[in-house]
């Protein structure tokens, strides 16, 4: 397994280079360094001299991918792409275009993101599995029928509706929690209760339906019939056998997102005023801050690949038939 993990880690390098190249190409297909400079400098009294100064100060005064004027390796290394990308591989994110440290921002902002996303993930998993088991248990009854209808209805409603509706009802009408804001420590509870509840609630429709399908598929298999034939109670069949064997597809979807929980939720953070990485990324895209965008894309890619690796490893833990070689 160790050899497998090492091999997978080595695969990461070319993938990340390609991701970086793609991000670079996509970003600069719509923004030139001049555009970035003008956006940072504002629209008033901006001269070409100021633009050139900004570009030189931020390292955007070089050729993009190939420097014909340089010698030897300098043709590749003395370029914007190389200088902005190579340090990422040692997680040196540098400074944003406004001069502030990206590393500092990531280290500061990942905790609020995690404070929302982790409870949403854990509580959500428990709620979706419970609801899915309930529907599967009562398959082909009114519980299952109305449960599925409810799930489809909940899936059809935008998350924004849950957020605005939740804020209105719980914060404005019932005055139970603050509408928005954040605070570290124990004070965080009152700020996180509503976003976590809404995040969980908004995912019930899709989550429960997906898990219900998994459980129903499992329940049609021979080992379930055997278990029932042995005289086991339905609860034992469901919780001990179906749930256990349904874990592989559940893990596929769940473990892969664990590392990316750090990256935050875009809309949720915006509406609840949570200073996480989701809103950081959105701000950077709006501000055309390439330094932040490439860092966040890079970090997202690394975490996603890490998630896939963890998923593979977790298979071996829940299914003895799986061997990583």
């Amino acid at each position, binding site marked *: 397994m160790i050899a497998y993990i090492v091999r997978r880690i080595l695969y990461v390098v070319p993938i990340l280079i390609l991701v970086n190249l793609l991000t670079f190409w996509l970003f600069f297909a719509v923004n030139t360094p001049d555009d970035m400079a003008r956006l940072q400098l504002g629209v008033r009294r901006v001269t070409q001299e100021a633009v050139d100064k900004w570009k030189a100060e931020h390292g955007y005064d070089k050729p993009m991918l190939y420097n014909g004027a340089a010698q030897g390796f300098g043709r590749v290394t003395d370029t914007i792409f190389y200088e902005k990308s190579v340090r990422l591989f040692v997680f040196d994110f540098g400074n944003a275009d406004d001069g502030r440290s990206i590393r500092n*921002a990531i280290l500061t902002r990942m905790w609020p993101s995690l404070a929302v996303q982790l409870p949403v993930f854990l509580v959500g998993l428990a709620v979706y599995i419970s609801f899915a088991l309930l529907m599967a248990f009562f398959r082909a009854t009114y519980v299952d029928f109305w449960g599925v209808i409810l799930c489809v209805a909940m899936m059809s409603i935008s998350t924004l509706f849950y957020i605005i509706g939740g804020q209105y009802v719980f914060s404005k009408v019932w*005055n139970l929690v603050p509408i928005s804001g954040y605070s570290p420590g124990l004070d965080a509870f009152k700020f996180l209760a509503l976003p976590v509840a809404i995040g969980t609630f908004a995912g019930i429709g899709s989550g429960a339906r997906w898990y219900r399908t998994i459980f129903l598929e499992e329940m049609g298999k021979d080992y379930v019939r055997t278990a029932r034939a042995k005289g086991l109670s339905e609860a034992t069949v469901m919780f001990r056998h179906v749930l256990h064997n349904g874990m592989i597809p559940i893990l596929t979807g769940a473990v892969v997102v664990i590392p990316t929980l750090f990256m935050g939720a875009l809309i949720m953070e915006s509406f609840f005023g949570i200073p996480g990485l989701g809103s950081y990324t959105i701000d950077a895209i709006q501000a055309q801050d390439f330094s932040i965008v490439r860092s966040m894309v890079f970090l997202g890619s690394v975490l996603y690949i890490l998630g896939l690796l963890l998923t593979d490893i977790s298979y071996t833990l829940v299914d003895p038939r799986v061997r990583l070689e």
Partner: protein
Amino acid sequence: MRGALHTAILLACGLAGCGRVWNDPYPAEDRGKNILYSFFIERPRHFDPAQSYTSDEFDVIQQIYEPPFQYHYLKRPYQLIPATATEVPHPKYYDERGRELPADADAGRIAYSEYDIPIRPGILYQPHPAFAKDEKGEPAYLSLPEGEIRTKYKLSDFPKTGTRELVADDYVYEIKRLAHPQLVSPIYSHMTDYIVGLKEVGDRLKRDNDTLVAEQQKRYGASDPGRPWIDLRSYELSGVKAVDRYTYRVRIKGKYPQFVYWLAMPFFAPVPWEADRFYSQRGMNDGRNLTLDSYPVGTGAYMISQYDPNFRMTLDANPNFHGETYPAEGAPGDAAAGLLADAGKRMPFTDRIVFTREKESIPLWNKFLQGYYDNAGIASDNFDQAVRAGVGGEAVVTPEMAERGISLVTAVEPTTFYLAFNFKDAVVGGGKGDEHARARARKLRQAVSIAIDWEEFISIFANGRGVPGMGPLPPGIFGYREEAGGYNPVVYDWIGGRSVRKPIQAARKLLVEAGYPDGRDARTGQPLVLYLDTTARGAEDAAQLAWYRRQFAKIDVQLEIRSTDWNRFQEKIRLGNTQMFFLGWHADYPDPENFMFLLYGPNATQDGENKARYENPEFDRLYVQMKNMDSGPRRQAIIDQMVKIAREDAPWAWGLHPKVYSLRNVWVRPGKPNVITRNTLKYIRINPELRDRKREEWNRPVVWPLGMILAVLLLASAPAYLSYRRRERMAAKPAGAPA
């Protein structure tokens, strides 16, 4: 179950320190304190006074930095008064040979203007580690080893603080910083045209900086993020120097009366060399953001104590503030409005200002209504809930707001939002055509100006928050004329004591004269299609774009809208590849020059602000004359001529001047809106006890729905549970069934 629920809620709230109000977003220990709660929407980029140039940033740094001058809080028209200076200076004029000229000398003879700016002795900086001294009386933190800096993450990690007296050299230091190669000051290029020697010192600094950076990269590697410190004290700036400890002199090329207004902006606030040195030490900005761009150092009423631009920024009252008092006189009517109640009292009136980031308008509005923000603007979505038309048509708060004691303050912003016609374009500008072609284009522009009904636009899209433009100058700026003397006769008629937009027939007539009867080119018979470049393209802009098309359709002209992103839009304007486009300008200072220069011919360059590329030699001649004059009847007469020319030429469809509507809660003492400067938070007084009472009254928690939700869940799951029990007890095969 009910008891368990209550216990859980009480525990949760006990943990969170909720008290009697559960939805309070602020710490419980701050209740009852004299704190002003405000908000910010955009993440500020720069707090460095040499770089900061947006109103969001000015909201914060103008409370901290003190340029030599400020605007009087109450008097209108806006009047410059000393801040740290002892007086607003009158410049001395010199000719080319250095001979002093009289104050009324012709501007053409003036080679240099000199401003001697005396500052008050005894003003101290806020407490800051940059001023701290060790036991030997040496600076404690100005030569720290890199290893020690790496153990510091915020300013409070430096236990010692100190202060020192503000001196003239600090102002000189900041003016040199405008030319600093490691900073990109937005006004550097503009100021090199005026401040003697600024360009030269900038070039020298750049050369020296390149050498220092090369040495540093040689030592630490090419990707080293550190920036070498340049001690600006050792650079001589020929046009700016300290005459003595408390006076500095600025030498300007030619005559530039508007220069004193720049001296009221943060670009010209003092920066102590110690702060520059402190933050320039290796490692300070390495993942810590310990920079002047994040933690300003000033002499103002407040100082920054918490800096988190993603979430919250806190300003505390500066204990070393020099004790400015509330003005004792104001404009007529101010005393009756209670605006002089605090006359002579020491400011600031609040101990702390908390700015919380609110990116979305819905939470912002609701928190204002809950009493968690002291002031708020009004988003379009909430307009009808907040404001209605009064008996005389004026804007007043709705009964719902009035019941809460919320009051409304309005002011016309010194901003103009206009539709520009590109003069390089053959159809709307005349391009390189002859006089006849230019006349045709002028009539076409006039026709379009009549057709676009800005009154309707303001009513539909701005909820009435705007004033139709009558020329380049907005209300409140010297030269703007009200009523009959101020209406634009090209677009309006004066009927019954008010301006009325000319009938659409007048626009059609002009269109015929322009050679486009019924919206077709009289020579070719082709329909006239005009092109509007805009960044509006989303679904939310559809109504506005449709409205623009309808305005042009009124005169049978087809409008083609070319939507594009902001970058391409800017580029098109810069290169002149547009026909028509919308743009706006907000005043830097309250002087007509700051608007008229937008139409000055020599500014019609790629980087110039004359985006319409308008050129009229007579207008330009008058502009040069006007810009060098003191405000008075003679200047007014010249402005009248310029406005007349501009109205006739119609380089812009004059658009509108937005009106800002601001609401304040009942515990905020009446204040006066100031749309020119942002250093006004020191004048604001609040009543924290009343705020606490109102918050409790407005935010009583309603708990019973939680119990109800739980009961509904239990009731809904009961049939399922019963069904489960029944199935578990059921035999595999019903009794009596065949085997």
